[in-house]
Every structure is written in structure tokens, then in C-alpha cells.
């Protein structure tokens, strides 16, 4: 699935999203004041308005809540890689948090999945580690 990421574009890192995109873990933003977990990470806690955050690491597992198989390449760079599958996964430890990724093989809503990470070294900063999904054994 690396080729899809390379064609789709790597994330631009910011202080707010860096833990999610580089830690190689399910690193969720946790408000230092009220301990609310929120994703995608934001500059302000949606629950209390706090601006200081810690990172809470959740278990890398979840359930597929939606998926699509992309057949028509959305850009010339992706033309060589269709069809590919995009999944949306609800995390076991925080079901309100849904995470996008790719997956190989047949997929269905309700399927149990586990995460792994793909590494993309960059010239200007930390290695990007992108979450991806596979069927839970």
C-alpha cells in the first residue's frame, strides 16, 4: 500500500499532528485539563477549551464501519494502483474516533482489523509513520 501513499501525498507535519503521524502508535490527543480524547488533533480542546495536551496511546485495533473500493483513479499518479480499498475504522478503545486507512483483500463492515504502520523517511524532518489496517488474525 506504500505506492498509494506515495501517489496520494504524505501529510504535512504540524506541532498538533506530529505525534499521530510519526509515533508509529495510535497516539491520540488527550486534553491535559479534562482528559478528553479527541481526533483529529486540534489546537483547542473541544470539551473545555484547554490548549495543553498530552498523548494517550490506544490499542491498535478496531472495527470497519465503512469502506470503498476506488476503481476510477482520482489522479494520474494513482492510475497504476487502482483498484484500491479505503477503510474507515472505529477504534476499540474510543469508538467515536474513526481512522482512515487502506487495506488489502476482501473487507466488510463489522470486520475486525488491526493496525500496522508504513514508514516514509523525509528529508526535512522526522520519519512519517502512517497507520494502515489488516484483517485481525
Amino acid at each position, binding site marked *: 500500500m506504500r505506492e*498509494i*501513499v506515495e*501517489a*496520494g*501525498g*504524505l*501529510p*504535512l507535519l*504540524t506541532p498538533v*499532528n506530529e505525534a499521530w*503521524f510519526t509515533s508509529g502508535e495510535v497516539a491520540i490527543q488527550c486534553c491535559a485539563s479534562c482528559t478528553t480524547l479527541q*481526533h*483529529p488533533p486540534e489546537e483547542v480542546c*473541544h470539551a473545555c477549551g484547554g490548549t495543553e495536551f498530552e498523548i494517550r496511546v490506544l490499542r491498535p485495533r478496531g472495527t470497519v*464501519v*465503512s*469502506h*470503498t*473500493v*476506488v*476503481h*476510477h483513479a*482520482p*489522479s*494520474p*499518479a*494513482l492510475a497504476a*494502483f487502482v*483498484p*484500491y480499498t*479505503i477503510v*474507515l475504522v472505529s477504534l476499540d478503545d474510543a469508538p*467515536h*474516533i*474513526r481512522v*482512515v*486507512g*487502506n487495506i488489502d483483500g476482501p473487507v466488510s*463492515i463489522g470486520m475486525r482489523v488491526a493496525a500496522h504502520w508504513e514508514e516514509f523517511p523525509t528529508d526535512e524532518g522526522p520519519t512519517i509513520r*502512517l497507520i494502515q489496517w489488516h484483517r485481525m488474525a
Partner: protein
Amino acid sequence: MRGASAVVGVGESAYYRWGEAPDTEFQLACAAIRRAVADAGLELTDVDGLVSYMEPRNDPLRLSAALDTGPLAFTAQTFGGGGNGAGAAVTLADAAVTAGYAGCVVVFRALAQGQFGRFGVGRSETRVGGNAAFTAPYGLKTPAHVTALQTAAYMHDHGVGQDSLAEVALASYAHAQRNPRAVAYGEPLTREMYHASRWIAEPFHLYDCCRETDGAAAIVVVAADRARDCPHVPVSIVAGAHGLERRGGVAAFCDPDFPTAHYGHVAEQLWTRAGVSPRDVGVAQFYENFTGPVLMAIAEMGFCEPDGLDEFVGGGNLQWPHGGLPLNTSGGNLAEAYVHGMGNVVEAVRQNRGESTCQVEDVELSLLVSGPGYAPGSAVLFGRM
């Protein structure tokens, strides 16, 4: 303000497949606005307000100079990208006229995908920022992919079948066969063709997806008392609504109500403001970038329960002249043209004027629903004066 303003003019440019317009987007915008103002029996110097949505191209300064309008008293544009802003733009015009900030407001949208890039082609980027950083790396690059994920989850949760998606497409293509303006005029669609067409992003076949178009459309809004002097039957803006549910703006599919078309709160406001219910609506235009969000919005606007969608849309219920809720009677964004739903606005008005090519008999209330699937949503109920 219920019925305090009215639409007195409509106009559009010719519609073209993307890249085939001989005119620039700005020229298309000028042509549509000129036609709408002429249709209203007014002069361009009467125009003192310009409202649009989605993006600031064709801004009011340039337009007012090029069209030599009257002095401008009101300009505005809605937040949130896409066709979801069309109804909101109409409500801004209604608000401006009703509050007395302007006397004659043009609502318009021009879109030349040949000139400015196709919506069906994602940007080729090596690095992606903002909310797209959480989606684009996975090849989730276009609105088709966003709405496919919403639709697949919704179909699963509510037992909606593929044939219900087909019903939306079949209605639009059937209606377009009577509308010479439609890009798909002369290109009828059958259920067999729908199911045999190639996948774009499951559950969307080719015919679930809107056109990519060059074109422009506009309407003219004035106060109700002034509307009676105009040559066409004035169409009252009975009520408008705009917005989204609480926390509906959380990004990357983490909004609590996912999967939703973001129309629950819009519906609540619209029906309360208008004092009527979905049963009172004779005809509806639902912006269709893709068929799936239309189904979700039909349920969220209160026409049926989510679990009852197959039954509600089945059996040709969305098709003129025999269906109970004729939908997208010009051919809509699937089959007439994709001007970001501004064509839906024009058609909703035409139904109340009695000028549609699929005219529903005796229309009291004509509903516009803009841009389901993307927040914030908006809707307008048009009616007889």
C-alpha cells in the same frame, strides 16, 4: 421573514461539457446574470447586491464593473465549500432584501471546470496539509470518495439497496430527456445501463456521479411588494435554513452523527420556519453531486424513515409525472449540468412559475435542498405569493 422577498428572474448560460465552453467562467457568469435580470424585467443598474458561494472567483467588484450595475449595497458569500451553499446564498439574499440592506440582489454561481480544473480529478501533491492530511495519503482524494464512505455506511446501517441509488439517477436522466438545456438531453438511461456501468468508487457507478460542466446560473431577489410589478409570476421565498448539527464540523469522519448528510438541523429549522411539513411539498430539487447523499437527505428532511428509503424511492416515486415526489425535474447535476446546484435553484423557481419541462401540476410549495453530504447544509422552500 416568511415570504417577505421573492424571486423575479432566473437565467443561465448555455451548459457545456467541461472544457467545451467557448467562453471563460467570468463571461459565463456575466451572461447568466444578464439573462436573469432581463427575465425580471429590470435593468442592470437596478442591481445593488451580489451573493455567491463556494469560492471568491468572479467577485462582486469585478462583476459590478463589468456589468455596470447600480451602486452596490450588499455583497456576501457563504462558508463551507461546495453546492451545499446554494440555498444558503438564497437565504442571504432574502435576509438582505427583507432587512432593507439591498433592494435587488442577484444570487449566482459560475463554474468552468475546463478553465479551472475538474472536480473529479484530485490534486497531485507530494505533501498534504490540513484535514486532508488524514485522508489524502490513502488515495481519498475527491468528493466521490468522501460520499462513498458516508453512503456505504448508511446503506449498511439502514438496509438501503443499490437500486435506490439507481432510482435517483434514473429520475434525473428521465427528466433531462425533456429538457433541451440538459447536457444529457438525448442520452436516456435504463436500469440495465446503470447497473452495467463501470464503478467509480463503490457503491457509486458512473451514473451515480454528477457531470463536470462549464456553465453559470443566476436568480434575482427583490422585496415581495416590488415583485408584483415584474413580468413573470413572482416566486415567494417562504423559508430558508442553513447550518449543521452540533459537532457536525468535526473533521475526517469523526463527527458524532456519521454517517449523515448534515440535514437534520436544516430540516428542523426549515419546517418550523415555514409552518408546513414534507407532505405539503409538491416537487423537490436535491443537489446531487452523488446519488447516495440525496437518499440520506430525503430521510433527514423527513420524507421517510431511513429504513424506509427503498420503499419510498422505489417504483419510480421520484419520476415525473406519476411519482409522489418528482425529484430533480430539470435533470439536476447528474443530467442537466453541474453548476454547483445553482441549476437546482433555477429549476425550483421554474416549478413555481409553471415553466419546467417536467412541470408538476399546481405546485404550491417547491423545495430546494443543497449539497447533502457536506456541511453546512442549506435548503429553501419556494411558494406562491
